[in-house]
């Protein structure tokens, strides 16, 4: 079932069963059951990269006309070295620039220190069809220290709005 832009009515125009069922029934049912992709998971990626690199496989969602996608992701980041570093997850749509990120920033200042991260992202209106969203991560030096981070992703879901 897809969303159909409802039609305006004016005085004297007949609302047929087809119009009613499309504009109200079908559209309300569509809103009640939006397209959802629930990705994984329990994905672990260790990285030292200072540029965004994939930390989770891409998830796909098929949208209808005029739809945005809400992405919700969460997990935790663990410091694998010493010194102060930043762990930054972000997201990319259809593997195209620009990145929508960093979506979160986690300061890690001690070996094995770990903190949770989570962020939500709403896309621009996407063209109808299948789109992929992929989580990326990178390490940013804090206080001049280069480091390694373990990104664990626990939640990664997509909802068509």
């Amino acid at each position, binding site marked *: 079932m897809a969303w159909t832009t409802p039609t305006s009515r004016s005085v004297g125009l007949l609302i047929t069963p087809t119009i009613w069922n499309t504009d109200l029934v079908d559209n309300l049912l569509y809103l009640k059951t939006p397209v959802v992709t629930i990705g994984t998971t329990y994905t672990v990626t260790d990285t030292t*990269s200072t*540029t965004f690199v994939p930390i989770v496989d891409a998830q796909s969602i098929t949208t209808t006309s005029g739809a945005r996608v809400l992405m919700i992701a969460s997990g935790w980041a663990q410091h*694998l070295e010493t010194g102060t570093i930043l762990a930054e997850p972000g997201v990319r749509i259809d593997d195209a620039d620009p990145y929508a990120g960093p979506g979160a920033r986690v300061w890690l200042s001690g070996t094995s220190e770990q903190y949770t991260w989570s962020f939500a992202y709403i896309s621009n209106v996407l063209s109808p069809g299948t789109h992929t969203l992929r989580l990326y991560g*990178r390490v940013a030096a804090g206080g001049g220290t280069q480091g390694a981070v373990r990104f664990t992703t626990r939640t990664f879901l997509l909802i068509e709005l």
Partner: protein
Amino acid sequence: MREIEMRIQKNINIPALDRAMRARFGARISGISRAGDTLMVHVLEPADGDDDAAREVLAAHDPTEQTPEQAAFEVVRQAPARAAAIPGWATWDEQQAGTWITDNVKDLASAKVALIAMARMLVALRDAQWPGLGLDK
């Protein structure tokens, strides 16, 4: 950017391997990543021979060799145990420490024993407080 992917068939010390890769590739890489049994080298400026170079670095990698930072952290981790191993000094309160010195430090030789024990405690405290103090940053 180009990703060089390699299957990992041994343990990996990520920080140490990262340093080895950066020593080989310089600023041409942004770093390395590991997901499961796949290692990726993120090459910003690809050049011929990169794949072979990455494989050589991985083949030569010894995961038991620590980076200076890892070695410094190991020293920090062991500091409490080293302090606890100094007889008496790990548990005495102020009065007990003073009493021991009064009763036992009689000459230069016995003073040296006390000084050495105190030096061991100071070194353990230094290591716990300032890990990597001597590291070149």
